[in-house]
């Protein structure tokens, strides 16, 4: 009805304020032939320009669905969503000109070499051959893939594939980059490689929406986190604010002798900020300042001549977080 007039005014408003690069309000999506309630059930999101937002949620929470809707690959049933000021339902072509998408599974041609892949995507972005080649070499350099550039992607490691996938999405500097579960299935080294690559993007001012199942990953990379459960955002805020809401880290001690438990409970008194849990010879102590708690505890144990079998510091797991959140809201 409004056509391009509506689009351009919306876009001008965005140019002026440059605030919300992604806006989604009450988005609903049910897959055709899918289970009732699966998909998105009133999804809301606001992403400010130049920030990294983490969409955090367990399997089946709707992360991929949200990313596919925002990148125009999937139609929403109801609600509104816009990216860079353009409506995803009515101005898909404009949206596609401004986004990069890194899907959950590396979408690159396994037979072609890394360079051939990037040149192809460059040409499909209408850069022309010469520019595509130059851009491909720049990106290979930037993602430390120059040495493997002439190798078939089938021979790449998971981390290398993911980096190439990222590079392919950055051929034309996008306003918004969507990254769906960048490190799922990668080993720790691969994960670090990808994290470094994403951090670089952020330094260049790209707005990033990334999804993840790992609290730690969202914590490492994102300025803001939206927690997704059953197709709905259940909590939203900066990582610190959320963590404060979520409660503490845990210091887990496994003792050699259950008789030492009472002694350890005494030692834990000064560092804990909650209720200590004891299960046989395992003592879980909620702590606020994680590193300080660990050093103090290590010292006290040493002085008391107690040598535990194991001592670990851990973040609350995603399950605990969701339990906490749904418990708190009930």
């Amino acid at each position, binding site marked *: 009805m409004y056509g391009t007039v509506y689009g351009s005014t919306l876009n001008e408003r965005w140019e002026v304020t440059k605030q919300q690069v992604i806006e989604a309000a009450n988005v609903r999506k049910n897959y055709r032939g899918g289970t009732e309630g699966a998909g998105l059930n009133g999804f809301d999101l606001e992403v400010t320009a130049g920030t990294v937002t983490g969409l955090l949620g367990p399997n089946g929470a709707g992360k991929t669905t949200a990313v596919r809707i925002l990148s125009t690959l999937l139609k929403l049933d109801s609600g509104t969503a816009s990216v860079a000021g353009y409506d995803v339902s009515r101005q898909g072509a404009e949206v596609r000109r401004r986004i990069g998408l890194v899907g959950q599974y590396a*979408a690159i041609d396994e037979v072609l070499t890394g360079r051939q892949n990037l040149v192809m995507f460059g040409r499909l972005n209408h850069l022309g051959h010469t520019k595509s080649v130059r851009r491909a070499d720049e990106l290979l350099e930037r993602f430390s893939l120059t040495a493997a550039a002439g190798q078939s992607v089938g021979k790449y490691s998971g981390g290398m594939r993911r980096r190439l996938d990222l590079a392919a999405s950055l051929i034309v500097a996008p306003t918004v980059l969507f990254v769906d579960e960048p490190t799922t299935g990668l080993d720790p080294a691969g994960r670090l490689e990808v994290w470094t690559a994403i951090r670089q993007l952020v330094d260049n001012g790209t707005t990033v929406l990334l999804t993840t199942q790992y609290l730690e990953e969202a914590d490492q990379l994102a300025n803001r986190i939206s927690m997704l459960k059953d197709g709905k955002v259940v909590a939203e805020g900066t990582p610190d604010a959320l963590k404060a809401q979520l409660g503490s880290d845990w210091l887990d001690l496994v003792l050699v002798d259950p008789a030492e438990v009472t002694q350890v409970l005494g030692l834990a008194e000064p560092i804990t900020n909650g209720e200590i849990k004891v299960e046989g010879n395992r003592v879980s102590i909620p702590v606020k300042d994680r590193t300080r708690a660990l050093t103090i505890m290590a010292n006290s144990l040493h002085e008391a001549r107690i040598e535990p079998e194991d001592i670990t510091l851990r973040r609350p797991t995603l399950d605990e977080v969701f339990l906490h959140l749904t418990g708190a809201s009930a």
Partner: protein
Amino acid sequence: MTALGWAIADGWTITRRALTHWRMQPGLMLFAWFFPVLMLLIFGSLLGGAMETPEGSSYYELLVPGIFALTMLFGLEGTMTAVTQDKDKGVTDRFRSLPMSSAAVVLGRCMADMLDTIVALAVLTGAGLALGWRWHDGLPSALAAFGLLLLLRFALLWVGIFIGLSVKNAQSITAVQVLVWPVGFLSSAFVATSTMPAWLGTIAQWNPLSAAATASRTLFGNPDPSTTATWIGSHSVLMAIIAPLVLTAIFLPLSAYRYRTLSH
């Protein structure tokens, strides 16, 4: 550049991708191109002796055009596999998230598969000639026969794209790969339909593959008894034009519809 210009340019980029695949996997391509030759040799030596051929002509006179048509049918698998793999691996999604026309993706696939078929036909023609098969009615008529074969391949391209987009995963392709064989045997590819039991011959006659096989025999001047046996046999060239057009008219819109509903 105009929208159409870009669609062609992008389509060519995607065709080049397929050509690069050929270069990167020469062994695989050689196997695919020589597989029809293998079939020609196997069926030729297996059935050649037992086959009653008109006027004592070589069985290869009948078989070579049949294997040509069968090669068109087998091309279906290649199209299907490529389309399903791209969909499975997310490459299709990547294309769809780019500011390029969706027609380009299909156009690229189409050009690549047609080129692939032309190479396969050329290899098979060489093998046929070496085994003593000839065309007897001049080059223009022979080229018309090749044209009809390629028309069938073009129609099957859309069937392949449709199935490729419809199946859940690459495993489902195996089912189609198996089904291709009965379709191939239930046609005039290996034997003239007029020598089959009546009911079977009737079914086989209406197989689009038979139309292509019989029509190309007619145009190559190779003997096929079914050309005089029935109405459909004597109008095989017409059938070889109409059947692919009907298939295209059904499966091209269906493929376009499937491509659009990937977003549902």
